[in-house]
C-alpha cells in the first residue's frame, strides 16, 4: 500500500493551489494521501489541505523557523515526517524545485522532476529538452520516491465538505541557522495569479517598452486574466521576472492563452502547451507561435489589441 506525503506550498497563510494539483497526481499513484504543512502558523493552511478530496490526513508542524520557506530548514523536517512513506511529492514550482532535491539527496535517492503522467507507482513520464521529448522513468521499487509534480499536467483536487483529520506534529530535528530570509519583493496585484488563472494574456518583445505593455494589462483586465510575458520581454525590462512563461519560467495551463507580439521560441511554447485554447497576434505570419495557435491573427498589435479590447465590450 502506497503512503504518499505531499509537502504543502503556502504563502501569506494560504494554501497554494499547486498543492491541490499534487493531490490529483497522488490519487493517480493511489494509496493513502497525507499533506505535510510546515509553517509558523499552520492552522488555516492545514484546514484548507484537510478539505481537499482524496486527502486522508494532514500533518501540521508549527515552528517560527518555518515562517519563510527555506529549503535547508524545511528539508530535515520533511525527512523526519516522511519516515514511513513510499512517496514524497511537492509541486514543481520554485518552492518545490528548491526543496525536493535537498530532501532526495539527504535520503540518498534520485528525484523525479516535473512528473507529468503516472504509469504505475514507480514509473512516471516527465519532459526533457524543454518538452521536446517525454521520457518514461523507472524509479527503484525498494526506495522512497521523491518527485516534483508538473502542476500544469494535473487538475486541482476539489475542496469538499468532508475534512480529513489534522494531526499536530512535533518534529524534533536540529535546524540550521546558516540560511536567513532577508526580504521578498513581490509585485502584488489584484489580477489573478499567473499559475492558476483560467485566462492569461502575455506580451513579448514586440511591445517595445514597459509603457506599451499597458495595452496588455488593459486587455487582461477586460478578460479578467492574469498577465504573463516571454523571456525577451522580461530580459528587456518591460515586466518583472515572476511573469516569465516558459521552460525556465512558469509552466501554465489556462483555458485561454493569448500571446501578443510573442514569436514562439520552443522555450516559450513548452510553458503553454497545456493551455486549452491559444490565440496568437503577431505581425509576422511566419512566426512559430502560429504553429501551435488555435486562432491566429496577423497584424499590428498596437492596432489589433485595443480593437480586441473594444470588441469584448
Amino acid at each position, binding site marked *: 500500500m502506497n503512503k504518499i506525503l505531499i509537502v504543502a506550498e503556502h504563502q501569506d497563510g494560504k494554501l497554494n493551489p499547486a498543492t491541490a494539483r499534487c493531490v490529483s497526481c497522488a490519487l493517480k499513484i493511489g494509496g493513502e494521501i497525507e499533506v505535510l504543512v510546515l509553517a509558523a502558523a499552520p492552522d488555516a493552511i492545514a484546514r484548507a489541505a484537510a478539505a481537499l478530496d482524496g486527502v486522508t490526513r494532514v500533518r501540521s508542524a508549527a515552528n517560527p523557523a518555518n515562517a519563510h520557506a527555506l529549503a535547508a530548514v524545511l528539508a530535515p523536517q520533511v525527512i523526519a515526517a516522511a519516515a514511513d512513506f513510499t512517496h514524497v511529492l511537492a509541486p514543481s514550482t520554485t518552492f518545490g524545485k528548491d526543496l525536493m532535491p535537498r530532501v532526495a539527496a539527504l535520503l540518498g535517492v*534520485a528525484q523525479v522532476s516535473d512528473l507529468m503522467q503516472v504509469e504505475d507507482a514507480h514509473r512516471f513520464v516527465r519532459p526533457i*529538452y524543454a518538452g521536446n521529448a517525454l*521520457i518514461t522513468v523507472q524509479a527503484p521499487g525498494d526506495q522512497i520516491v521523491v518527485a516534483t509534480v508538473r502542476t500544469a499536467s494535473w487538475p486541482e483536487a476539489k475542496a469538499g465538505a468532508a475534512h480529513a483529520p489534522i494531526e499536530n506534529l512535533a518534529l524534533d530535528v536540529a535546524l540550521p541557522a546558516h540560511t536567513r530570509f532577508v526580504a521578498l519583493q513581490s509585485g502584488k496585484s489584484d489580477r489573478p495569479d499567473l499559475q492558476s488563472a483560467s485566462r492569461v494574456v502575455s506580451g513579448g518583445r514586440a511591445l517595445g517598452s514597459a509603457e506599451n505593455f499597458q495595452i496588455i494589462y488593459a486587455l487582461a483586465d477586460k478578460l479578467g486574466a492574469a498577465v504573463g510575458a516571454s523571456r525577451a520581454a522580461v530580459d528587456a525590462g518591460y515586466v518583472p521576472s515572476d511573469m516569465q512563461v516558459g521552460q525556465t519560467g512558469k509552466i501554465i495551463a489556462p483555458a485561454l492563452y493569448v500571446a501578443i507580439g510573442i514569436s514562439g521560441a520552443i522555450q516559450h511554447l513548452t510553458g503553454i502547451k497545456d493551455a486549452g485554447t491559444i490565440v496568437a497576434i503577431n505581425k509576422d505570419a511566419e512566426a512559430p507561435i502560429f504553429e501551435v495557435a488555435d486562432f491566429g*491573427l496577423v497584424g499590428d498589435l498596437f492596432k489589433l489589441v485595443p480593437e480586441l479590447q473594444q470588441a469584448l465590450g
Partner: protein
Amino acid sequence: MKILVGYKRVVDYNVRIQVKPDGSGVVSEGVKLSPNPFDEIALEEALRLREQGVASEVVIVAIGAADLQAHLRNGLAMGANRAIHVSTSDAVQPLTAARVLLKLVEKERPGLVIVGKQAIDDDSNQTGQMLAALWDRPQATFASKVEIGADKARVTREVDAGLETLEVDLPAVITTDLRLNEPRFIKLPDIMKAKSKPIEVLELASLGVSSGDHLKTTHYAPPPKRGKGVMVKNVADLVAALKNKGLV
C-alpha cells in the same frame, strides 16, 4: 577565495531535438553541442567575483566522456584558471553529479560553488541543491543577484512570488538564473591563452563514486502535437470564434 563552477556540455539550445522512431533515445549524431547556458552564467559570475577581488581562483568542472576537453578549453578561454575533467563514459544523473562535486569540494575546499539552476538537456534542476544537502551547507537557488561579504553572501532569487533575498553563510552553493549576468564573448587571444591552462583528468571511479543509474529511462516519446489551428482575418472573426467556444 576559490570558486568551483559546474560547467556541463549540452545539446545547443537552438537544436530542435528529435526522438528516435523506436523510442530508444533522441537523435544525437551530428547535433551541435554547447556549454549549458546557465553554467556559462555561473562561470561569468565567478569571473566577475574574481575581477572584483572577491575570488582568487575559478575552477571549472565537467563530468563526461574523453571528448569534453574542447568544451573545457572553451571555459578556460572565457577566463577560468583551470579545469577538472571527471572522466566517465556513462551518462551521469544529478545525484551522481552532486556526489562527484562533493568529492571535489572536499579536495579543493572552495568558498563558493556556482552551478546553473538546470541543464537544458534533462531539465532536472537538482544538482546544486543536492550538493548543498550532501555538503550540509546553504543553498541559494535561481540567483539573479549575488553580493559577497565577509563570510556571507546576499543572494536575490527569482521565485514565483517575486524576488526573494536570502543571506547565507559561506561556503555555500549558488545556482544561477537567466538574468544574473550576460556571459562575455570569447576573444581569439583568450583561446590561445587557454591552451596552456591546466586540465586535470580524474576517473570517476577513482573518486569513489559509482555512476549507477538511479532512474532508468525505459522509453522516449515525442510530445503530443497540438493540432494546427486556423488563421482568422480580423478581430471580429476572432471574437466570434472565442464566443463560439464559450471562452469569452
